[in-house]
Every structure is written in structure tokens, then in C-alpha cells.
């Protein structure tokens, strides 16, 4: 098993390199650093000096892949590709356009992101599974039919609507909770509650539908028939046997997104003014700060691969038939 996991780790390296190469192509080959300088300096009549200075300030005044000014190892390392892309493997993300260190910023912003994402994840899982189980328990009745229709209706509503309507009614009209903002420490709950609530409600539709289909697939299997033949009550079958077996695909599906919780949620964070990584990304996109976008792409890819890795482990742990080799 150890060997398998190590091999997966090794396989991740070319993928990360590919991600790097792709973003590098997007950011430096499709548009040259000169284009970017023009874009940032804005005005139509930019002097070549200003462009050159902007490039020097941001470290874009180097050749892309090969620096012919050097003959030793520097000919490879003193390039944009090495400085801007390969350095990320050492978690060295450099500075953003406003001069702040990206790695440091990410560290401080991960906390607020997790404060929203983790409760949403856990609460969402609990709520969706309970609803799905209830619908499966009442399957082939009007209650189940109603639930299915309701789920489709809920998942057809834009996520923006949940946020805007929730903020408008709960915070602005009824003043139950603050409309946006964030505080550290124990006081944070007042700011966290509304975004978490809205995110959970927004996810009920698709989540419930998905889990219901998993449980329904499970309930058609042979072991359920056997359990019924043994005379077990329907609720005992559902809540013990089906739930336990259905949890395998549900948990392994959930494990994939576990590391990505660090990234936070773009919409929720920016609407509620949570200083997390999601709003960091949105701000960077709107300010066209490419260094931050590049860094977040890399981190996102790493977290995704970690998620795949964890899924393998979770599978072999939850399902004894699966052997990693």
C-alpha cells in the first residue's frame, strides 16, 4: 500500500508540470509581457521606458525559457519559466502586484475560508443525507414524488438568487444577522451563520437528488432482499444496511473535495465580505493580478491531486474488497 501511494505521488509530478506549462502558455506565450505591461499601464501613449520599467519591477524582463546571456546553470534558471512557474513547486509564489507576499496572504486567508467551508461541508452532508434517506424511506409515495419535484425546483434556482434573497430578507429586512463582514475569534459565528445557512440551502436540491439515487441503487441489491427475507423491518434495513453501504460512494465522493475546502467559495465569500481565499481570487481577477491567479491555479491543482490521493485511501479503508497495489 505504501508503495502504491508513493507511486501515485510520483505520478502527480508530471500532472503538476502540465498544469504549470498550461498556465505559463496562457500567461506568457499567448500574450507577451509587453502586452501585459500595456494593459496594466493602460494609457494609449506609453513610453517604451515605462514598459521596460514595469517589466523589470515585476520580473518579466527575462527570456521565456533560455537565457543566452549566461552560459552556466543560470541560462536555465534566470528565465521567466523558472522564476514564475517552477519556483511554485517550492511554494514560492513571489509577490502580488500590490507588493504583498502571496504565500503569506494565503496563510492568513485560509482560516476564514475554512470557517465557512467546513461547516457548510459537514452540515450539507448531514442535511442532504437525512433528506435523501427520508425520501427513500417514503419511496413510491406522493411524499417522495413531492420531494423529487422540490429538489429539481431547488436546483434550478441560481446560486446568486439564494445569496441575494437571503441577504435581503434575513439581514436587511429583518435584521437577524449582519449583512456581511467578518470577525476573528468567538465573535465570528454571527458573520459565519448566514453564509453557511444560505450555502447549505443552496446545495440541498442537487445533493439530495444525488444521494437519493445512490440509496435507491443500493436498495435494489441482493443483500437487501436477503435482509427482507430474514424478516428485518424496513426501517432497520434502511437505516442500518443501506445507509452503511451507501456511505461508501458518498464518503469517497466527499473526500475528493475535502482539500479543496481550503480554496473557499468564490461567491459566498465575496458577497459576504469574508476575507478568505475565494474573495482573494475574485479580487485578483478583477484587479487583473495575474501572479495571484497563477499561484491559486497551482494550489488548486495540488489540492485536487491530494483529493484524488485521499480518495484512494478512503476507498481501501471503507471497502475491504479494494486493495491498493
Amino acid at each position, binding site marked *: 500500500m505504501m508503495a502504491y501511494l508513493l507511486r501515485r505521488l510520483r505520478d502527480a509530478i508530471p500532472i503538476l508540470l502540465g498544469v504549470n506549462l498550461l498556465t505559463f502558455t496562457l500567461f506568457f506565450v499567448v500574450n507577451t509581457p509587453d502586452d501585459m505591461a500595456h494593459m496594466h499601464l493602460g494609457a494609449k501613449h506609453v513610453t517604451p521606458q515605462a514598459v521596460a520599467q514595469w517589466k523589470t519591477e515585476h520580473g518579466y524582463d527575462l527570456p521565456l525559457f533560455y537565457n543566452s546571456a549566461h552560459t552556466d546553470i543560470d541560462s536555465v534558471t534566470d528565465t521567466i519559466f523558472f522564476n514564475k512557474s517552477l519556483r511554485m513547486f517550492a511554494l514560492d509564489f513571489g509577490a502580488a502586484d500590490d507588493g504583498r507576499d502571496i504565500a503569506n496572504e494565503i496563510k492568513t486567508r485560509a482560516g476564514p475560508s475554512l470557517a465557512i467551508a467546513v461547516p457548510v461541508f459537514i452540515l450539507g452532508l448531514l442535511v442532504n443525507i437525512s433528506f435523501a434517506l427520508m425520501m427513500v424511506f417514503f419511496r413510491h409515495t406522493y411524499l417522495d414524488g413531492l420531494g423529487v419535484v422540490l429538489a429539481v425546483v431547488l436546483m434550478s434556482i*441560481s446560486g446568486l438568487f439564494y445569496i441575494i434573497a437571503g441577504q435581503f430578507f434575513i439581514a436587511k429586512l429583518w435584521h437577524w444577522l449582519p449583512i456581511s463582514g467578518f470577525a476573528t475569534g468567538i465573535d465570528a459565528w454571527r458573520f459565519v451563520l448566514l453564509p453557511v445557512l444560505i450555502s447549505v440551502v443552496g446545495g440541498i436540491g442537487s445533493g439530495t437528488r444525488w444521494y437519493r439515487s445512490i440509496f435507491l441503487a443500493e436498495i435494489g441489491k441482493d443483500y437487501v432482499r436477503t435482509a427482507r427475507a430474514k424478516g428485518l423491518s424496513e426501517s432497520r434495513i434502511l437505516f442500518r444496511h443501506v445507509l452503511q453501504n451507501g456511505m461508501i460512494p458518498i464518503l469517497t465522493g466527499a473526500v475528493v473535495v475535502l482539500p479543496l475546502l481550503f480554496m473557499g467559495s468564490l461567491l459566498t465569500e465575496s458577497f459576504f465580505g469574508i476575507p478568505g481565499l475565494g474573495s482573494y481570487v475574485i479580487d485578483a481577477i478583477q484587479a487583473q493580478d495575474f501572479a495571484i491567479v497563477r499561484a491559486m491555479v497551482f494550489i488548486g491543482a495540488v489540492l485536487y491531486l491530494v483529493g484524488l490521493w485521499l480518495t484512494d485511501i478512503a476507498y481501501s479503508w471503507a471497502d475491504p474488497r479494494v486493495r491498493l497495489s
Partner: protein
Amino acid sequence: MMPVVLWTDALIYLLVISMALMLYFQPADGQLREALRRLYQNKMGIITGWILLMFTLLALLDSLHYRPVLPDSPTPQYSIEVMSALDAVLQPLRAHNEKTYSAPLAQHLYVKENVTLANGLVVRDYPRLNIAQTPQPEVSVLLLRGTSWGMAAILLIWLVMRLFHVRHTMGAGSWVLIIVLLGTMLLISLAGHYHILGTDKVGQDVLYSTLKSIRTGLLIGTLTTLIMLPFAVLMGISAGYFGGWLDDVIQYIYTTLNAIPSVLLIAAAVLMMQVYIETHPALFDSSAARTDFRLLFLCIIIGVTNWTGLCRLLRGETLKLRELDYVQAARAFAVSDMRIMLRHILPNLFHLILISVVMDFSGLVLAEAVLSYVGVGVDPAMQSWGNMINAARLEMAREPVVWWPLVAAFSFMFTLVLAANLFADSVRDAFDPKGHA
């Protein structure tokens, strides 16, 4: 007038034509016909299908672009502004532009202004809207008039059908048509006299913007999957069929693409495209061409982040299919790989492809709004629900609340997405041979 064919116009009509051809030259085994019959027997499928068809017709009308002739010039000269057939149809909605917000069916503007009274006095009051300058009939009168027009139209259709001995039983589809007909008549009778859904910040009719946004939503929902579909199908099938190094390469490609959070990839690509457009202004001769290019590019890049799921699914299915007896038999008879893939594998994957295209649609329509909010969606100058929501959400803080642009955009989007979701379920039930509960 001078016709203008934008890239997305061409693609959407190509799509319609190819779908018509596919229906006409369908395989002789009748499986497609059988599946369509099942779809047609599903009440939900019919109702939602008709609703989607209405949206599609509006979008197709909106995809016929032209540049109108400028009036009073000796030699024919064409306006810079690119119009569409839908604009011409919706002329009554465009005729009266207001200064700024006005509530649905209002007669006065939302904000106070200096108004000169008949006796020369200047007071601060809510000015009358441009549309209300001529005396307006009461709303109830217009509603009654619209209803009677609708009834008359239905009666006429019924009479014509009786006259030509068309046999028809009233089904769910007919009811949808009747409701749509009535609604259209009501809108027509109201449109010239009131802003039915109010006006937005720059005084444009909200109903007009919402109707124009349909095209954007539909294009993002369809073109995105269809642009990348050939790649997904080709790569998925060949990875599963040939295996070996080709499989490794294709798996590597889609794992790499999957590893990048899709919003970030879209954001990165769109930001880069913005730089490209700004540094190459010569390539785009009109603002319509520029917004259209941006829309097309957005479709492509969302497609790039989206095709990996289908590719993986097709690869897995092909892996199973190629071990089946009839494929083995075809191989034993030395049928070429190309022919096996085309004749024996692709037809058995067809339902999966179709279902995945239909299932993706609603998610993409919703994604457009989110991307526009993030700032990497369609061009800000383009009419889209995302842009409408984005422009209107800050107005929720005003007193009294400006709610109508948001409600209009959300309810149209909701109708389309709900119809698409329900239709997708019907399509899945009708086309999936395994059947679902």
C-alpha cells in the same frame, strides 16, 4: 439592410440544420424513432419540450443579425449598430426609453426631478414617463383586450383545423401552446402603453433585456458542449478502444485539465483574451463582432473545462464495449478499427452523449450568471441574465427597493433552467435503454 453573420449565428444555425438532418436521415433500425416516441408520450417531456422550443425560437430570431439602412441619405448607408430580427419584432418595447428606473406598469419615474407645471411653476416631483405622455388605457382594459385577442386567435386556429379536417386531441402540448398564445397576446396589448417589467438604470425596458438575454443563455448552454463534443467523443473512444500509450496520453490530458479549478482556468483564459482583444483592436470591426468573439471564446473555454467528464465516461464505456462478442467478431473478420468504432461502438454510445449534452445545459446557463458576477463572463455590453443581475444587485440597498430587474432575470432564468432540468430527465428516461426508476 445588410445582413451580418456573426460567428455564433453561423454555429447555432449549423447546429439546427445538422439536428434536422439527423432526424431526417436517422438510422434505419428505428431506435431513435422509438426513443422519440417514448419522449413524446412523457407528459413532462412534452410540456418542457414546448417551453424550450419557445425559448429556442426567440433565440433563433435573435440570431438573424443585420445592419439597418440609415434613413435620409442619398446613397444607401448602413447603421453602425447591429440589429437582430428580434429587435425588429420587439420594436414597441424599444420605442420609449426612459431616463432611469421605473417600476413595472408605472406611469412615473422612480426618482424625483424638477418638473415644470402648466402654470410655469417648477416643483420637485416624479416626472411622467415618456411612454405615458399620450393617454394610457387602463391596465385592466388592456388585459381584457389581450385576452379577447388570444381567444380569437385560438378560435381561428381551431376553425382552420376543423376546416381542413385536421384530427387533433388536446394534449399537454396544446395547453402549453394556448397559454403561450394568450400570454403573448397580453404582452402585445400591454407593450405599447406600459413598461410591463419596468425599466432599468439607463431607462431601457427590462422585458426587452430579458428577452434578449435568452440568446446568450441558450448559446452558452448549447455551444459550449457542442464545440468540444467532437474532441470528447474522438478522444474518449480512441482511448478506450486502442488503450496503450494513447490511453495514457489522453488520460494525462484530462487529468491535468481537471486538476485546475475550472473557475480559475476560465478566469485565466478570459483575462488573457481581454488582453488579446485590447492589443489587437484591428481584428474586430464592430462592437458586435467583439462581444460575439468574446462569447464564442467563453463557450470554447468553458467547453475545455467541461469535456473531460464526458471523455472519461466514454472511455470507460468503450473499454466495456470492445470486449463484447460482436466487436470481437468484427475484429476476427478483419473489419478495420475505424469501421468498428464508427459502426459498432459509436452507435452504442449515442444515448450517453445525448444525455450528457442535455444534462449539462442547465448547469451552463446557471454558470453564465456566476461567471459574469466574477467578471469573466460575457462582455459587459452584451445582454445577459448574469449582467442584469450583476447590475441590479447593488440596487437592493435603495429605498424603495428596485426589485424588478432582479426578479425578471431570475424568473426567466429559472423557467429556462427548470424546463431544461425536467426535459433532461425525460430525455434520459426515454433514451437510456437500461431505464431508470
